[in-house]
Each structure stands twice: as C-alpha cells, then as structure tokens.
C-alpha cells in the first residue's frame, strides 16, 4: 500500500464524444477505505467517469493513476472489480449462475492452471452472501432482473478486490433487496475496502457513504460538489433539485485542486 493510501487519482480528466465534452477538467483523488457515492443527473458523465477509471474509455486529456501506477502501465486488475449497469439479457448460449460468478475469477495469469480451491470458495461465499446459492445451476437469464443484478454483485464480491466499483447496483432491486445489499456493502466497508457507487437512490446506503461527488454542475468543470454528504437525507428523493441546493451552499472545493 502507498504511503498516502491514495488508490485512485484523476487529474485534469477530459473525455469528449464527437466533439461534445462529456467530462471536463475532473480532478478527484480517492483514498483507501472511502465509500464514494457518484451522483448526478442522466448524461452528466457518471458512467463515463468510471469507465475511464477502468481503462474502458480513452480520455482526451488528463491522467489517471491506480494504486500509484498510471493506467497505461497498470497490471494489477485483480485489485478492482466492477458491477456493470447493464444486465446480460437473453443469452444465445445458456450460461449458469455459477459460471457467471466464476467468470470473474478468470485472469490471464491463471490460464496455465485450473481454478483453485480458494477461487471456488470465494465464489461460493459470494453466492451465499447474495442469497442465490440455491440457484447456481440455473440459467442466468432465467432469473429475474433483480436476481441477475445480485449475481453480478456476487461476481464482483468473489474477486475480493480492494476497490469495488458499482454502476447503479440498486437499479431494479426492490426495497428488501436494496436493504440486503446495503448490509452487504456495510460488511465490505468494514474490511477497509474502497467502494465507489454510481447511484440515483442514496436512501438505503446513505449512512455508509463517506463522500459524495456530484457531476454535471457547470460547463467548465464536471465536478460540481465533492465532499462529505452534507445533510443526512439531502440526496434522497428528487435529487435534481437537491444537487443544485448542495452546489449553491457549498463551494466546489474539497478533494484536491490541480
């Protein structure tokens, strides 16, 4: 671990699509153990930002560092796990729940051996954690949307990564499932892992969040607010209005300046 415990560092990040600025001058440093909620209206670049962090989007400007290594040279991908926003949908070939969770354990460096006992154990534990162990032999696309999302969460959990990135993990989950997920996230937070959650509904995880980053505030800087979640309950419900309210009240400093 690095001295300053910085796990993600983003400097002056700009991403354009067809000449349109999606992200502009983003500067964020995330420390180990933080629970970050990434907020903002649709189209504010939340998903683009996490895709850029993960090397899935190529920035036009700026520098991204993961665990002290620039993205280009970064090799320790086992330290990061992603829960994607999109559900797999209907599959051409049946893929079982178990195979989906185990797919998270596939790494180039393990291509010369079979899955290890501990890899299978963590997949087993993750499936039990999301309460879908009984469905492990079923086709993934035979499950409900909420269940499929839990499988994707289990796949990420099984990686036992240091950073867990979740893009709208609560989408399509009913309140009972959201409550279960928040309990799960609390446990992961206890272990000192870094969690980044893109979300619209903070309600059930708000008590876990240590930092909120709101995107889409101004034309020249994508990050409108970056700091501790100011007032409990402020993000809940109609977040569009509240984003503006937060930005009005709080100077867009905090975090780091270039």
């Amino acid at each position, binding site marked *: 671990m690095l001295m300053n415990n910085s796990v993600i560092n983003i400097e002056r990040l700009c991403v354009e699509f067809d000449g349109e600025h999606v992200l502009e001058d983003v500067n964020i440093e995330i420390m180990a153990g933080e629970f970050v909620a990434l907020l903002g209206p649709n189209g504010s670049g939340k998903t683009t930002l996490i*895709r850029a962090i*993960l*090397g*899935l989007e190529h920035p036009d400007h700026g520098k991204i560092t993961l665990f002290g290594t620039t993205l280009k040279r970064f*090799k320790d*991908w*086992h330290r*990061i*796990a*992603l829960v*994607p926003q999109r559900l*797999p949908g209907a*599959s*051409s*070939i*049946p*893929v*079982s729940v*178990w*195979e*989906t969770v185990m*797919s*998270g354990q*596939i*790494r*180039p*460096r393990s*291509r*010369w051996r079979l899955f290890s006992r501990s890899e299978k154990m963590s997949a087993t534990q993750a499936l039990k954690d999301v309460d879908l162990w009984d469905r492990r*032999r*079923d*086709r993934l696309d*035979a499950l409900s949307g909420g269940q499929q999302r839990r499988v994707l969460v289990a*796949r990420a959990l099984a990686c036992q990564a240091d950073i867990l990135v979740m893009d709208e993990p609560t989408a399509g989950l009913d309140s009972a499932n959201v409550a279960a997920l928040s309990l799960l996230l609390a446990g992961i937070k206890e272990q000192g892992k870094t969690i980044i959650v893109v979300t619209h509904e903070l309600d059930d995880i708000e008590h876990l969040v240590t930092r909120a980053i709101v995107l889409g505030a101004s034309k020249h800087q994508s990050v409108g607010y970056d700091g501790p979640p100011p007032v409990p309950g402020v993000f809940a419900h109609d977040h569009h209005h509240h984003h503006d309210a937060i930005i009005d009240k709080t100077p867009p400093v905090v975090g780091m300046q270039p």
Partner: protein
Amino acid sequence: MIALLDFDFMRRALVAAALVGLIAPLIGVFLVQRRLALLGDGMGHVALMGVGLAFLLGTAPIPTAMVTAVLGAFLIEFIRNRSRTAGDVALALLFYGGIAGGVLFASLAPGKASSSLNSYLFGSLSTVAAGDLWALGILAVSVLVILAIFGRELFAVCLDPDIAQVQGIRVRAMSTLMAVLAAIVVVVGMRVVGLLLVSAIMIVPVAAAQQLTRSFRTTAVIAVIIGLISSITGLAGSFYIEVPPGPAIVILALGCFAVLAIVAVPIRRRRKELA
C-alpha cells in the same frame, strides 16, 4: 460397416470427419455466444479463394487455404475493430470476395481444376490423402491445446468484453484468436464436409444442444457429442447412398436439432415445475 472400413480412403475420411465433428462445435459455442454465427461461413468463403489460388499456383490446397483463411481472420477483426457497425458488412465482403476469387482463380487454373472445386464446396469421400490426415490431425490438436489454455479467457470475452478487459484480459487478441480458430476449423472440415457447409458443423450442434442445457459447459459437451454422431454417421451414410458427405452430415445435425426441440419441451416444463 466392415465393408466401409476396408477402404483406405474411407478410414481416412472417417478420421477427418471425426476431427471436424469434435473441434467444430467447440469453436461454434463461442461464436454463437458472441453472435458471430456466420463468421465460419465467411471463413469458408475465404478458404475457397485459397483453394482456387492453390489450383492456379499448383501449391497444396490445405496450407494455401489455411494461410488465406487466417489472413481473412485478421482482416475481419481489423475491419470489425475499426467500425462497430461494419461487422456484418465486413462479413458480406468476405463472402463475395472469397467465392468470386475462388471460382475466378480455379477457372484460370490449367486442367480441370474448376470441376474439382465442387468437391471442396460440398465435401468428398475420396479426397483425404494420407499426408492430409497428418496436417488435419496437427491442426485439430492445436485447436484443442489453444482452447485448453485460452478457453476461459475466450468465455469471459464472450460473456462481457468490458468486464473481461477490467480483469486484464486482452479482448482484441482473444477476438482475433477466435477468428483464427474458426479459420482452422474451416480448413480441417473443408475436405469431408466442404467449404459451403463446414460452418454448419460449428453452429447446428450448438443450436441443438442449447435447447435443453442450462450451462455453457454442458452445451459444449452435448454439442460435441452431436457433432461427432452426425459427422461420423453422415459420412458413413453418404458412402452407402452415394451422395456428397457434407450435405448428409448437415442434414443429420439438423435432424438432431429437430429431435432435441421436441424432447426439450417436457424437460423445460418439468424444470419450471421444480423451480
């Protein structure tokens, strides 16, 4: 069956058919999952150009077709990566270019090359030479070895390319590998099944198997069984009723699809009741 095995050429054809019945569905299961079911067809057409070229230049058909098909595999991945929407157009270009080039080269070739092109289109019982069998065997074994090493990474890429990339898997390299493997299967199958139908052995057994399976692995295993049954029986049948082996093998595979379609109905219903 005894009479059939009395002939050297039939023994060689049977081994060649078994090889393609084994490896074709193993690649097909990845192609279908990645929605590239027609990639094998594209490769077949490109290999046809290689065969035409071999006639024209007087080189051996298998290595020439192999080189052409692998080049085609790189080309199609190159076009697919450059523009996302051009995937099916890229395949179409391969189809037309391959078949036009193949027939053109074969027609320009001296002798009666163009008439023997037919045996490459629909397969033939008598064209597997003893030397060919070695080449086909080595190609088939290399497909199995590559799958043993890279199979899981290929699976991850088929499942979700983005997640695979975040796991450190080289998605582009794996996609190209998949196209190259399809090219190898096409060349292994071109002698007995024929270039126009070889990709059916990649796709039809997989389509048949997935009707009653619940996992990727079982689908692959059942598809291989269907591939082996239809290629071996199809080849033997074509000997007795004197038709080209390719169509016989494919019709049998389609028969398996129809049978499993009927069998799958009660199985699925029972699974639903249990769940």
